[in-house]
């Protein structure tokens, strides 16, 4: 085991996969010579050379389109979209082309590509550079969606994403880049579509994603002191979705809470809530409650931004108020 930062785990995963498979290539803006604007891809150009690690112009459609063309002709590309907000700039490529191509051609080709991006708030960048848009990707059939919360999960899940034969949208959280964690040594591959139970409780099940996971854990610790014992589940993947763990853990406590950074309407938690309400209705001891960012664009000022996205206090207060 070694302690790595979340950002270093990104570079480590890409390096591991590029080493293992010469078909893996990487492209994006400022990713090669500069090592990435978030310093997530430092050292890759030096290690693998300019054929396989390429800087592109500011051309999101061309970046993602080229990744698609390369993926359908024998390569396994990783494309970076600097900020997940920019998916809106190349959404045709992702939602209309990549997500649907295999289906429309009845399986004549597959698209083993990864689009990795920096998602989420906390950096005071303002509304167009701070969004959580994992729910956009979840809503389009044909895309796998991953959002790790720890360096180990970054390494293992990014490796799994590269090895996956289908398009994977990999949401890194920019607010977590500096966090540290233990990462297994050597070749490490995790499994997409598997949630992790980080804490077992008996009164409530809290399901969270990415940067909301550490907050859920902190909240659970505080709630324990008040006599409310909470399970915390890190969902890790939205597609494929680990509904088995979701249902099993909800049944154990009878209460489900989601903690979502995306805006309220049609956030990923709405789908979770719907599945649980339908398939575990008779095991519910109370209403399913979603704790989300309200349905507003994100404000820029630090005091505002911090109080828009779910805080530890809001999680604790909500669970305490509704757990009885």
């Amino acid at each position, binding site marked *: 085991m070694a302690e790595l930062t979340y950002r270093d785990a990104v570079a480590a995963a890409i390096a591991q996969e590029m080493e293992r498979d010469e078909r893996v*290539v990487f492209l994006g803006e400022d990713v090669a010579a500069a090592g990435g604007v978030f310093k997530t891809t430092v050292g890759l150009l030096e290690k693998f050379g300019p*054929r*396989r690690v*390429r800087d*592109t*112009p500011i*051309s*999101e*459609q*061309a*970046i*993602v*389109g*080229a*990744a*698609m*063309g*390369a*993926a*359908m*002709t*024998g*390569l396994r*590309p990783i494309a970076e979209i600097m900020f997940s907000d920019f998916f809106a700039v190349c959404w*045709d*490529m992702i939602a*209309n*082309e990549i997500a649907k*191509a*295999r*289906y*429309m*051609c*009845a*399986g*004549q*080709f*597959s698209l*083993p590509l990864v689009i990795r991006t920096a998602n989420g708030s906390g950096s005071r960048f303002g509304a167009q550079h701070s969004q959580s848009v994992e729910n956009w990707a979840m809503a389009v*059939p*044909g895309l796998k969606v991953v959002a790790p919360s720890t360096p180990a999960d970054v390494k293992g899940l990014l490796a799994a994403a590269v090895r996956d*034969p*289908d398009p994977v949208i990999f949401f890194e959280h920019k607010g977590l880049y500096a966090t540290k964690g233990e990462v297994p040594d050597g070749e490490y591959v995790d499994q997409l*579509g598997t949630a992790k139970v980080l804490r077992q409780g008996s009164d409530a099940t809290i399901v969270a994603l990415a940067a909301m996971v550490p907050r859920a854990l902190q909240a659970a610790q505080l709630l324990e002191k008040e006599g409310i014992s909470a399970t915390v589940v890190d969902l890790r993947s939205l*597609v*494929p*979705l*680990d*509904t*088995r763990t979701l249902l099993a853990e909800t049944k154990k406590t009878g209460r489900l809470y989601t903690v979502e950074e995306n805006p309220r309407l049609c956030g990923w938690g709405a789908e979770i809530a719907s*599945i649980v309400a339908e398939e575990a209705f008779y095991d519910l001891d109370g209403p399913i409650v979603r704790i989300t960012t309200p349905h507003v664009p994100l404000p820029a000022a630090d005091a505002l931004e911090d109080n828009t996205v779910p805080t530890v206090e809001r999680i604790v207060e909500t669970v305490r108020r509704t757990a009885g």
Partner: protein
Amino acid sequence: MASDDIDRSTRLALYRSQIEIRLLEKRAYDLFLQNLVKGTSHLSLGQEAVAAGFATAMRPDDYSYCTYRGHSHTLARGSPMVGVLGELMGRRCGLMGGKGGSMHLTSVAHGVMGSYAIVGAHLPVAAGAAWSAQLRGSGQVAVCFFGDGTCNIGAFHEALNLAAVWKLPVIFVCENNQYMEYTPIRSVTAVQHPAADRAAAYGLERIVVDGNDADAVYRKARESIGKARGGGGPSLIEAMTYRTSGHSRADPARYRPPGELEEWTKRDPIALYRARLLEAGFGEGELRAIDSAVQRAVDEATETAKASPPPALEVISTDVWADGGSSWRN
């Protein structure tokens, strides 16, 4: 003829390819009137020479990308007629088993890497395929066909720029049929030639070719493909042509000025080519034999496709993922 740089068999191939496209597109039109082809279809009647010219110059392992007006390009690369007609009619024998439809004809086995319905989307994809060939050192090239309207969309600019900067082995071919859907292209474009007049912006040569002359297209294709294959980078070619039918089946094309259609019909690529071949000493009988053989092939393909059943309902949930399924949960 200007020179004898195109051999006899190539000339016959060019002729045959155009006839195949013409007769199949006519059949597609008839089938639409009989309500056997549903939805919409975009025909290439009048534009056969561009597809034939390039396809004949390509290697079987080269990649081609085209738009929703892609029956011609799909056929020209050798895809089976029954697959094309079957797909248009939504039958099991369709190239994609009825999953894609007229606008998305794909036959990877023939290098047809998809037909694309969103204007401009496939240009970056073609660039990506070219990048892949370059990286692998395979010598393959990608040829990307699109219309005059595409030259005004963002993805055109991004793809051309990237291809030029990375010197990718991709040939961008603009089939300028004068109309962007229902609107004359000149009225919505800042320059006269929507593709060729922008080549300089990417450091590329300005190339305009008579899209209704199969030999001219073939020569230009051979040249640009050779250049790309040899590491010389991308080309942007504007082929001037005309579509004799409407934009799509729904369009009776009343926006054409009077006389325009007649003018261009005089320059019908197949009539032109036939005259040239006869003049060059090819036998009338030889050409007629090709015509009949192709008509027979179209007729057989039509009957076979008509007899093919609709796809099984099970395929609704297949092939989202590489494992053949569509499951999003455990």
